[in-house]
């Protein structure tokens, strides 16, 4: 029984230490977001055409005007065709 008391005490300490630690840690993350990240977001805003930013980086070499059928689409489809043929060729 003594042993059980000891174990309960340890478990209780763990619970306390753990919950305190988790809360402190994640609270510091909140502070980090509200200070460091917020400042960074102001200092380095996304380029104005934000929703396209991810594409921009890659499409440098594909800068033809969209709207008409882009050669990239053609290339992608023919790539898909090639992939399809490769995968559905002989297997084992």
């Amino acid at each position, binding site marked *: 029984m003594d042993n*059980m008391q000891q*174990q*309960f005490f*340890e*478990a*209780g300490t*763990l*619970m306390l*230490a*753990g*919950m305190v*630690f*988790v*809360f402190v*840690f*994640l*609270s*510091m*993350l*909140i502070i*980090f*977001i*509200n200070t*460091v*990240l917020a400042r*960074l*977001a102001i*200092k*380095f*805003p*996304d380029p104005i055409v*934000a929703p396209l*930013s*991810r594409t921009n*980086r890659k499409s440098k070499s594909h800068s033809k005007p969209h709207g008409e059928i882009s050669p990239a689409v053609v290339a992608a489809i023919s790539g898909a065709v090639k992939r399809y043929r490769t995968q559905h060729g002989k297997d084992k």
Partner: protein
Amino acid sequence: MDSLTKLWLSTGLANFEIGQVVMMLVGCGLLYLAIARNFEPLLLLPMGFGAILTNIPVSGFSEVGGLLHYIYYAGIDTGIFPLIIFMGVGAMTDFGALIANPKTLLLGAAAQFGIFATLFGAIALNYVPGIEFTLKDASAIAIIGGADGPTAIFLASKLAPDLLGAIAVAAYSYMALVPIIQPPIMRALTTLDERKIEMAQLRSVTKIEKIIFPLGVLLMTIFFLPAATPLVGMFCLGNLMRESGVVDRLSSTAQNELINITTIFLGLGVGSKLSAEAFLNVETLGILGLGAVAFSIGTASGVIMAKTMNKFSKIPINPLIGAAGVSAVPMAARVANKVGLEANPHNFLLMHAMGPNVAGVLGSAVAAGVLLALVG
């Protein structure tokens, strides 16, 4: 005829032990849950299959020279497989919703009470005859409340490898049961008016924030909890590969082929720990019971925390999103969304629940680190 005798003696029928038969049925049960019930099939299917294989008499799958032996010792005993999975999960995770509404981190913290309450409960179970959980065992069991598969497997492989099978079964089963376990608790703890609360649209998050965030998380983990850096570090590496935008090849591989390959072997390896000796005892029942308790307490703490925050916050917070703090990404967030829609058909909580949801992943990795540091 000598040959036929030898052949007969080498059959499974001549060598079966009852425990093996039962464990194979357990394996079949896991396959059933995976295939017919769609319970976390990506892990439970290979795991159920591994459970069957490891219990085949004579074949020695999990003995020296056997396939599952190699898989377990190379990938799980070393911790490599769960860490690779965690990297892939990091590469799949979008922290945008969390950064846009950082207060939701508190919800992810509150839900970890499920872990530590379970730890207490596991020790209490030592009153039951036949159950003897050390503090290490109890910690490994408690992490089920984190509702995060790789974290649970990683911690169990370090603290209580013998319980690994039961812990993984419990963790993934309850994660699959989230849509059944959570809603009644959520409804019981909230009023209809609370569930109807609509939340303001999230601000857009810039690229630089998303890039620096994983680095900040890693830095803080290094400062305050190095024991959690394997898990948090690999998670942040995956996330950084995703958000940096300069290594899309690697990010895509981490999210697809690499995580798929690892998942197959992780499942088989975990399944190999489902032997009769390790699984067929009262302790397993205790673990399964504690798992349910852990999820329920975690859900409740998250909801209560959200209720409290809503009372003190100028901007309204729907308490339902607190339940997503247990992680179980993205299931718990979807559940919050669904329960919210029931109360108010215009109430789309999905994006708001993603914040506490991914916060829960960080929270349970931190909790795992605390347990490793203090008990490991």
